[in-house]
């Protein structure tokens, strides 16, 4: 082989080859630089997204308590079935184990699972839980999530106050109101649950787990425990609600009671009620449709959303206006003959035979229409409206609940705008006895009674008492009784004295509200019978003979004790007939419960301090 060979051309080409090799390797290094340095962060995020799965842990909502520390809203354990990866085979296997809800969209599950855990079925039974857990290895991506679920132990007793929780809607998810709530979070959808949602909600925890490529959990990376929401103590007293519900029975209506010293709402009940528990699980479609289409509208809170003519309870306002404007004195008497002819119309008093000669106190106590009809020509509608507004009518009470309505205090300007008609003098006659266009809510009337009872202190009613740190023991609220009023209704003391005397006599003297009387406490009040049908045969027919929808609404507004009122109340019974017959007894029972409970509590306290002394 030792033949002479010219190796030069080979060596020349090898030098070229060397250049090619260096270029190739250099190019590769450049490419790795691009992937690892230039775009490294991006790929690090992708790698993290690959293997780190956040598993949210729902924070239990804070408790809602009544003023005595009774539980209105708490949480019960429940389980949700979720899918955390878009694995069709897992979904198919799950479907064989667990009955899916009927409207399940499998494609949507898979699509969603690519981004975040998709909720397959809510509140599954323990049987389903164990069935899925036992096959966990065959079901990569399937996950049983522990979820605390809202529970209202007293059912519908305070449904309209506490409201209910529900899943965030898509709009709410995008909107601002619910801050950092996440998909599938339960948030307050109405009532207190909604108003104080932020405080009640707490903070979801998260467990970040490392999973491998088939979704099996390898280890827990970090754990942020959920933070309980704070407890919220409300001013309402469930015992009063229970009494109200008992007395109201099947009747529709509202009971509102507030403490005249501070505006704390002691009771705010609307009937018929609904069970808020039916919203905290999977809402049964049928149930939902049933609730929303029920002709009795159980979902609406009549105490703040129901607008009713105040009937004779409005005489308090008219009397105050007449006294303040100097149209009458406490001694001004009017002879009631059972009807009054004004502006060519005959206006009837409730008692066809007439009340005889009555002064203002008697007119309030016996609810004499004639007296107030006769005031109408001397009291311009604007003046009545001014005094009505002074007592807080015609605008929202600013209670801490959503969707309150403001009612209506009519005046010529309103009528021109709303109906494009001038105000007729005859209308003022109707308004003088609380009929016509004037509309109020039960809570507004309770506020009015409180203002009269306290001789002019007007408080905005409030449900919120205090927040308690999560986990603290429920206890009765005792401190902080008197509060400076939001506003003072600056009438003459004599005016209040007449109103108070009239209301006292209505209950305790010759009056329409005798059924509200209590043996141990001086109750004051005013009844009202708001006409639903005002003309013709129906108005003259007896209550029992009318179809229910045309029967009058029954009112009672009052307060007790007379000297230093602790509770002001308004009761409305829809189509209940006469206020004295239908509404006053409801108020009586609620007031009775209030004062009995108070006595019981004082006895207990005395006994405790006696024990402490020994």
């Amino acid at each position: 082989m030792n033949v002479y060979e010219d190796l030069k051309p080979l060596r020349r080409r090898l030098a070229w080859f060397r250049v090619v090799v260096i270029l190739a390797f250099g190019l590769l290094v450049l490419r790795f630089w691009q992937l690892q340095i230039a775009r490294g962060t991006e790929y690090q995020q992708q790698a993290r997204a690959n293997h780190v799965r956040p598993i949210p842990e729902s924070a239990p909502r804070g408790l809602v308590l009544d003023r005595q520390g009774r539980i209105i809203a708490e949480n019960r354990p429940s389980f949700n079935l979720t899918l955390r990866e878009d694995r069709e085979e897992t979904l198919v296997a799950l479907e064989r184990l667990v009955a899916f809800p009927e409207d399940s969209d499998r494609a949507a599950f898979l699509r969603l699972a690519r981004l975040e855990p998709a909720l397959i079925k809510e509140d599954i039974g323990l049987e389903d839980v164990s069935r899925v857990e036992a096959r966990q290895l065959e079901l990569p991506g399937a996950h049983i999530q522990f979820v605390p679920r809202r529970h209202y132990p007293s059912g519908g007793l305070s449904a309209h106050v506490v409201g209910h929780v529900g899943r965030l809607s898509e709009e709410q998810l995008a909107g601002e109101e619910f801050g950092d709530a996440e998909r599938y979070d339960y948030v307050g959808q109405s009532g207190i649950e909604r108003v104080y949602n932020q405080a009640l909600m707490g903070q979801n925890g998260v467990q970040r787990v490392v999973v491998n490529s088939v979704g099996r959990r390898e280890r827990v990376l970090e754990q942020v425990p959920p933070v309980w929401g704070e407890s919220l103590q409300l001013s309402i007293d469930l015992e009063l609600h229970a009494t109200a519900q008992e007395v109201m029975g099947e009747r529709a209506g509202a009971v509102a009671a507030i403490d005249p010293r501070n505006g704390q709402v002691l009771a705010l009940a609307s009937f018929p009620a609904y069970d808020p528990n039916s919203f905290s699980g999977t809402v049964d479609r049928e149930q939902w449709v049933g609730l929303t289409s029920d002709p009795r509208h159980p979902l609406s809170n009549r105490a703040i959303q129901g607008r009713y003519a105040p009937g004779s309870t409005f005489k308090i306002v008219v009397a105050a206006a007449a006294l303040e404007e100097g149209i009458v004195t406490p001694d001004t008497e009017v002879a009631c003959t059972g009807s009054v002819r004004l502006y060519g119309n005959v206006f009837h008093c409730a008692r066809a035979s007439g009340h005889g000669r009555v002064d203002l106190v008697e007119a309030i106590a016996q609810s004499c229409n004639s007296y107030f009809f006769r005031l109408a020509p001397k009291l311009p509608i604007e003046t009545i409206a001014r005094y009505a507004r002074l007592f807080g009518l015609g605008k929202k009470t600013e209670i801490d609940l959503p969707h309150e309505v403001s009612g209506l205090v009519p005046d010529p300007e309103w009528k021109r705008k709303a109906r494009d008609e001038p105000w007729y003098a005859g209308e003022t006659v109707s308004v003088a006895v609380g009929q016509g266009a004037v509309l109020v809510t039960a809570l507004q009337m309770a506020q009015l009674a409180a203002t009269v009872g306290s001789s002019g202190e007007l408080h905005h009613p409030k449900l919120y008492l205090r927040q308690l740190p999560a986990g603290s023991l429920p206890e009765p609220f005792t401190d902080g009784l008197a509060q400076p009023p939001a506003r003072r209704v600056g009438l003459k003391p004599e005016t209040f004295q007449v109103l108070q005397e009239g209301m006292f006599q209505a209950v305790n003297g010759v009056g329409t509200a005798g059924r509200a009387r209590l043996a141990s406490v001086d109750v004051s009040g005013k009844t009202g019978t708001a006409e639903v049908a005002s003309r013709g045969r129906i108005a003259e027919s007896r209550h029992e003979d009318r179809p229910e929808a045309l029967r009058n609404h029954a009112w009672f507004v009052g307060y007790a004790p007379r000297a230093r009122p602790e509770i002001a109340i308004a009761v409305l019974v829809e189509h209940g007939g006469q206020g004295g017959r239908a509404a006053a007894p409801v108020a009586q029972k609620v007031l009775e419960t209030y004062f009995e409970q108070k006595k019981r509590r004082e006895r207990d306290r005395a006994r405790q301090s006696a024990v402490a002394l020994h």
Partner: protein
Amino acid sequence: MLDNRQWRSIDWLTLLGLAVVSGFGLSVIFSASHAGPTPDLYKAQFVRLLMGIALLAVVMLIDYHTIVDRAEILYIATLGLLFYLVLFGGLRAGTNRWLELGIGTFQPGEVAKIAVVLFLAKYLAMVRKDRMSTREVLTTAGFAAAPALLIALQPDLGTAATIGVVYAAMALLSGLKPRLLVFAALFVALALPLSWKFALKDYQKERVYSFLDPARDPKGAGYQSIQSTIAVGSGGMTGNGWLEGTQSQLQFLPTPHTDFIFAVVAEEFGFVGVTTVILLYLMITLRAIETARRARDRLGTFVVFGVLSMFVFQTTYNLAMVAGLVPIKGFPLPLMSYGGSSMLATMIGFGLILNVRMRRFVN
């Protein structure tokens, strides 16, 4: 058997480079498989590495002229083996590229490559002119095409393509006009649509598709490419650390101990590790080019260059594949990937290179 000068001419630097890269490969194989169902792979690979070094020594000690004298026998035996495989070979992993031996399995394709290199080197070394005649081109192309076709029938297009590339490289070195190669490439380009329609299997088409657009089917064929790129990119400058790569440890990366072992290197050792390993491969390559340039005769040059072009092609293709630059092909990374046949073939190849280097001085 060896004289003093030959002893002194043993290329210790290359040997060291091979040992370092292979040893590092063992640790990466350990990292990529220790948590999986087969945690002991690194041990088996270590045994193969020792066997490879022994083979390297044996091949190095026998004068390459003596070896090349028997190239025809080796070549014909290889062809026979490939025929046998195509006709009777048992299927394994969808192909019949594996030969069951008493002591284990072996891929004759790896032997075939060495045989073809030796046979071509012998033939090309006999060409005395600086330009090959048409007849010579056609003959040598035929020598390469016969085993390549048989291997392609297995079907193992990767190995077949490797033989094609090695032939092209050796022919270029021997003076083939680059123009001819361009024509050949054009011909292949024209033939591609036809082969797409008639020859390519569905899984092969899928690989091309998924290379062109990995996001097309992220859970399917594009998965490997995406996961490999993520593994590489997430390594950053210094990597997650040994045994700490999430893509490999949590099995997002496919075949992390074989074809995608370099993705594990990139993930766990970062750009620093990647550059170091690439430089080591470059050093080994440049050293071999030196050997080819200094070879005593044409035969030596062609032997070294044939082995080397194979090594460089497989290495660069594998790295480019891991970096998402070329379609995924079942090429192992020489020296590092888990696998016996590749390790032994590579070591035999370097035995030949060192062989030529030791004997570069004319007695």
